[in-house]
């Protein structure tokens, strides 16, 4: 029999997270700080709207690009929050999570051999999606000393005449790093000059902890027309399981994305779309409440790390901290595996998000404070033990 498989797919590396997951699942009583989704339930009024839509028998397809009502609310929301203006009829597509938007965005924009710039550490799907779109992924390794922000210099160094799209993953999973207005302005200059496009994954836009709100790169002069903004409901409204996201951008790009979406997906889940309308209409307070709780946990962890002298830059976004463990002289995977087996706490090695995540761990604070406290106590014990081991080795 012939080989039934496509080389393109077979050659994609298995997810580093998956590998670690298989180890964790064996540990029965482990506590986990390894989850990339909110611990909150979807606010009740949003769930209620989903239930109501089922009761009313709204169980059919919506139009390919999404429910008109929802697209209108998305436009209002982006306008209210980020001063972005989109036409609900031509410049919005509702997708199955932000993930689908990443995939179809790349497929709509890339010709074989064109280069996509992917800053890492970052979410696990950019590189595989780029490969599946026949792009050449070009990794930009972000640095801890820049708080994992993308600098103008780093961007310039990676641009060739094949470069077409920059993926901009901020606020960032796994580092918690953000790009402030001035950071974006610096790179926007280069993007315009080099005639690039941006896929800006802003799924964590609601979860930033500085006084100034999240800024979308599409807000900057000259950037709207070269940016696809990706956002969704998973993180802000604790709706991961509803699988709902969206992309906004210039009509000519969105039109092609809708074409792929209509053949591959048809439309995003109808129940979720009705629920999402309620989220955007009346969800601001829910989001503010959850943000405040995340922020408290973030402060708690930063303080705990300071006290145990664990190196960590202060992250201002998402719900992750990304401490550095280089002082212990082991790889992220060794650290995470030992921490799991000896203290029964699961964290994700930074390398799951790119090679340059080596020497770091992703710790999620989408957990109750009590849960975090238990984990921090165990981390402290573990860190002290490692330091003791090092002292013995040195003498």
């Amino acid at each position, binding site marked *: 029999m012939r080989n039934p498989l496509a080389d393109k797919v077979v050659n994609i590396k298995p*997810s580093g*997270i998956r590998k*670690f*997951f298989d180890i*964790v*699942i064996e540990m029965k009583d*482990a506590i*986990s700080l*390894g*989850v*990339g*989704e909110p*611990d909150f339930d979807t606010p009740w009024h949003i769930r209620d709207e989903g239930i109501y839509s089922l009761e009313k028998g709204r169980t059919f397809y919506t139009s390919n690009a999404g429910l008109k009502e929802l697209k209108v609310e998305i436009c209002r929301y982006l306008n209210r929050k980020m001063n972005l203006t989109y036409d609900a009829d031509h410049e919005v597509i509702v997708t199955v999570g932000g993930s689908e938007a990443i995939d179809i965005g790349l497929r709509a924009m890339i010709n074989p051999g064109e280069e996509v710039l992917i800053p890492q550490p970052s*979410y*696990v*799907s950019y590189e595989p999606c780029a490969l599946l779109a026949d792009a050449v992924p070009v990794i930009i390794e972000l640095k801890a000393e820049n708080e994992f922000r993308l600098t103008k210099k780093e961007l310039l160094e990676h641009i060739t005449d094949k470069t077409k799209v920059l993926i901009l993953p901020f606020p960032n*999973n796994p580092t918690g790093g953000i790009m402030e207005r001035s950071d974006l302005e610096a790179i926007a200059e280069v993007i315009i000059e080099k005639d690039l496009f941006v896929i800006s994954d802003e799924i964590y836009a609601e979860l930033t902890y500085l006084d100034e709100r999240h800024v979308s790169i599409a807000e900057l002069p000259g950037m709207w027309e070269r940016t696809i903004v990706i956002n969704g409901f998973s993180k802000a409204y604790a709706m991961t399981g509803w699988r709902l996201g969206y992309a906004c951008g210039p009509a000519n790009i969105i039109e092609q994305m809708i074409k792929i979406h209509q053949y591959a997906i048809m439309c995003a889940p109808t129940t979720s779309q009705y629920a999402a309308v309620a989220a955007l209409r009346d969800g601001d307070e829910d989001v503010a409440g959850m943000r*405040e709780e995340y*922020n*408290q946990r973030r*402060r*708690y962890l930063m*303080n705990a790390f300071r006290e145990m002298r664990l190196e960590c830059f202060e992250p201002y976004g998402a719900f992750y901290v990304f401490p550095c463990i280089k002082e212990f002289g082991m790889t992220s995977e060794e650290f995470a595996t030992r921490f799991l087996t000896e203290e029964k706490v*699961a964290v*994700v090695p930074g390398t*799951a998000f790119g090679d340059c995540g080596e020497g770091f761990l992703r710790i999620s604070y989408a957990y*109750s*404070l009590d849960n975090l406290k238990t984990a921090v106590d165990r981390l402290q014990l573990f860190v002290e033990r490692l330091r003791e081991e090092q002292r013995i080795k040195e003498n």
Partner: protein
Amino acid sequence: MRQKILKMIEHNSRINTGELAVLLGVEEIDIINQIAAMEAEGVICGYHTLIDWDKTYIEKVSALIEVRATPKRGQGFESIAERIYKYPEVSSVFLISGAYDLLITLEGKSLKEVSMFVSDKLSTLDSVLSTATHFILKKYKDHGTILTKKYEDKRELITP
């Protein structure tokens, strides 16, 4: 800042000021001063413990009692409310809009004790016109805390 402090200690009055300072991102001394000021002003009136008595061996009966009463000229319901809240078995007294005037919550050792209180003490007060007693059979949620179910993390252990 006061609002944030109150929100935190309303759910957990045992949280220490140092931890509160870390969580809210402010100086501990400011927290101490604010709490002291709010205690002095009577904004913070006490620190209680939420107990699910059903899980203990101590027998307790709680009841809600609706009271219709005649207000007194010049002082409204003040004097009747005061008369009622002085009984130690009464745990709260609220003036209510709607079909009746006062809502009383009461704790006693047994049904009989609560009934005796209503018939002997409450109903016999001059300004009380009528009462309706509702015994609490089960508490599902109290002071924002769900008593019947433990939180269970339903998420996968590791996700990207």
